[in-house]
C-alpha cells in the first residue's frame, strides 16, 4: 500500500534582542559562565515584577507580517504550568488563546524546483527556559537562557514530506534573518524545530495518529528524523499494529526517534492569563510603525532582480538567499558592473572564498566597488578572464585595488595585433602539422594552436585577437 505523510511544524526562534523578555538582563547566553545574566525576575524571586520588552513584541509582529498573518491589536500572555528545574517559576510565560499573529501563509521552494504554500496557524511569543547539565546524581541549572524571548511559529498539517519540511525550515530561517529578528543559527540553538508526524493510506481523508518529534536541531536532523519516523509508523501499520500518540525525541547519535517518558511532560498545562503582566494592546499607529521597518522580502527581491537586472531565476535566488549578500550584490551593480557577470563572480569566486574561510560577507575586506572595477577591466578587454581570477585572488589575500594589481603584476591583456603577430608566427612555424590541418579547413587544431600562443604570452594575449590572427594567416 502507498502512504501519504502528513506533517505540521513548530519552529522556536530565539529573538535577537539586547535584553531578555521580561527583565533587563542581557539576552545573549553564549561563552559566559553559568548564571551571570540573571536577576530576581528571571530567577523567579518572590515579588519580582516582569515588564514586557517592546522590541520582542515588534520583532514577532514583523515576522507575523512577513508571513502574511493577521496581527491582533489585543493579545494576552498566559502561564503554562509545569514543574521542571529549567523553569524557575514553575510556569513558562507563553501565549495561548490570544496569540500576537494568526492565519498566515508562506511559499516554500522544494529541491525539485516546485513551489507550495504552507499555512501558518499562529506566531506567538514566550520565554526560553534555562539549561540543565546532568552530572552524577545531580542536575546543574544555568538560568542565563531563562527568559530570553522565544518566538514560536506553528503551521497547519499541510506539509507532505521531509523535503517540504526541510524547505519550510530554510524559508523560516531566511525570513527571520532578513528581518533581523534572529540569527537563525541552528547550531547555537537559535532555531529549534518539532514535527507532528502521521501517515495515512493514500487517498484517505482521515488523519492517522500523530507523533510529536522534538530535538530537530539541525537541517540534517529535520530530514533524517522525519524520514525515520515515517518509515517507523508505516512498519508498525504494515505489521498490523497501531501507532500510539506519544512524544519522541530525535537521537542524532543513534539516528533514531526515542519515546520520551510522558511523566516528565504531563500534557496538562492549566493555562491561565498571566496576572503579573498587562495585556498586550497595540494601536494602529504602533502596528504601522512595525510595518514600516519591514525590509524588502527575499521573494519580492528575487522577482525584482529578474525584472530589473535580467538575472535568471536561479541567479536571482542565489543573490537573495541572504540579505547581506543581496545588499552587497546591489552595491556591485550600483558601482557599474554588468548584473549577470557580477552574480557569476559572487556565486563563484566569492562564495568559494567565503566557504573556505567560514567568513560572512559583511566581514570581508574586499569591497563591492573593487569587484565592479575588476569586472569593468574584463569588459574593457584590459585583462583576460584567467588574469582576472589571479587579480581576485590577490585582492582577497593581500588587498588592494584591481587596476593597481594589474599594473604591478603586468597582467594587462595584449590585444595589439602587431605585438602578437610574431608570437603567432612562431607557433605556426613550430607546429607545422597542426597549422597545415587548419589550412586545409580542419578547425579542430585551432584550439591547440591558440593554447600554444596563450602559453607563449603567459596568458596575457587576448584570445579573440589570437584566433583572428590565426584564421587570417592560415585561412585568409
Amino acid at each position, binding site marked *: 500500500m502507498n502512504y501519504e505523510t502528513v506533517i505540521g511544524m513548530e519552529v522556536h526562534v530565539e529573538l535577537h534582542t*539586547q535584553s531578555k523578555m521580561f527583565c533587563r*538582563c542581557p539576552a545573549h547566553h553564549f561563552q559566559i559562565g553559568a548564571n*551571570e545574566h540573571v536577576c530576581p525576575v528571571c530567577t523567579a524571586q518572590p515579588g519580582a515584577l516582569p515588564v514586557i520588552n*517592546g522590541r520582542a513584541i515588534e520583532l514577532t509582529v514583523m515576522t507575523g507580517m512577513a508571513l502574511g498573518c493577521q496581527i491582533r491589536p489585543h493579545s494576552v500572555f498566559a502561564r503554562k504550568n509545569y*514543574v521542571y528545574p529549567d523553569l524557575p517559576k514553575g510556569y513558562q510565560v507563553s501565549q495561548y488563546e490570544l496569540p500576537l499573529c494568526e492565519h498566515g501563509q508562506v511559499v516554500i521552494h522544494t529541491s525539485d524546483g516546485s513551489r507550495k504554500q504552507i499555512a501558518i496557524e499562529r506566531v506567538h511569543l514566550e520565554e526560553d527556559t534555562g539549561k540543565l547539565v*546532568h552530572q552524577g546524581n545531580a542536575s546543574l541549572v544555568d538560568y542565563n537562557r531563562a527568559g530570553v524571548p522565544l518566538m514560536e511559529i506553528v503551521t497547519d498539517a499541510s506539509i507532505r514530506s521531509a523535503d517540504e519540511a526541510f524547505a519550510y525550515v530554510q524559508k523560516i530561517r531566511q525570513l527571520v534573518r532578513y528581518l533581523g529578528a534572529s540569527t537563525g543559527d541552528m547550531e547555537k540553538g537559535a532555531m529549534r524545530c518539532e514535527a507532528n508526524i502521521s501517515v495515512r493510506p493514500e487517498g484517505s481523508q482521515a488523519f492517522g495518529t500523530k507523533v510529536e518529534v522534538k530535538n530537530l536541531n539541525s537541517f540534517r536532523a529535520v530530514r533524517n528524523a522525519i524520514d525515520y519516523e515515517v518509515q517507523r509508523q508505516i512498519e508498525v501499520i504494515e505489521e498490523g499494529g497501531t501507532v500510539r500518540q506519544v512524544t519522541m525525541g530525535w537521537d542524532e547519535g543513534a539516528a533514531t526517534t526515542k519515546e520520551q517518558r510522558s511523566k516528565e511532560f504531563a500534557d496538562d498545562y492549566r493555562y491561565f492569563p498571566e496576572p503579573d503582566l*498587562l495585556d498586550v494592546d497595540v494601536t494602529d499607529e504602533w502596528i504601522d510603525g512595525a510595518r514600516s521597518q519591514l525590509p524588502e522580502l527575499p521573494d519580492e527581491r528575487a522577482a525584482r532582480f529578474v525584472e530589473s537586472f535580467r538575472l535568471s531565476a536561479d541567479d536571482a535566488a542565489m543573490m537573495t538567499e541572504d540579505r547581506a549578500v543581496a545588499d552587497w550584490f546591489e552595491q556591485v551593480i550600483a558601482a557599474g558592473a554588468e548584473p549577470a557577470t557580477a552574480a557569476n563572480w559572487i556565486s563563484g569566486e566569492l562564495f568559494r572564498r567565503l566557504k573556505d574561510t567560514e567568513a560572512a560577507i559583511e566581514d570581508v575586506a574586499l569591497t563591492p566597488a573593487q569587484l565592479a572595477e575588476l569586472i569593468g577591466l574584463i569588459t574593457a578587454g584590459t585583462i583576460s578572464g584567467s588574469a582576472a581570477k589571479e587579480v581576485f585572488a590577490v585582492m582577497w589575500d593581500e588587498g588592494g585595488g584591481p587596476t593597481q594589481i594589474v599594473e604591478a603584476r603586468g597582467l594587462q591583456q595584449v590585444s595589439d595585433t602587431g605585438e602578437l603577430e610574431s608570437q603567432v608566427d612562431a607557433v605556426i612555424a613550430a607546429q607545422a602539422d597542426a597549422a597545415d590541418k587548419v589550412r586545409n579547413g580542419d578547425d579542430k587544431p585551432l584550439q591547440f594552436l591558440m593554447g600554444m600562443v596563450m602559453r607563449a604570452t603567459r596568458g596575457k594575449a587576448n584570445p579573440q585577437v589570437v584566433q583572428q590572427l590565426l584564421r587570417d594567416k592560415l585561412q585568409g
Partner: protein
Amino acid sequence: MSVTVEDVRRVAALARLDLSPDEEIQLTDELSRILQYMEKLNELDTDGVSPSAHPIPVAGRFRADESEIFSGLDELLAQAPDRRDGYFRVPRVID
C-alpha cells in the same frame, strides 16, 4: 461546583506535591469552599461584557530593549541551598 479528592491528587501530582491522606481531605474541603465563595461572582449579569485579563487599559506601553547586568548577583545566588561552579544544583531529573 465542588472539588473531589481525585482532583486534589491530580493537581498535587502535577505540582510535584506529596500530600498525606489527611492533607488531601483538608485541601479538598478548603478548595471546595474557595470555589463556592468565588461562585458568588456568577450572580453578576455579564452579558455584553468582553472577557478581560487585566483591569487597566494601556496600549503599547513596553520596556525599551536595553540591558544591564544585575548588581546584586552574589546576594541572589547565595540564596540557593546548593550550588556548584556557578550552577544551581538540584537532584538529578533524568535517568
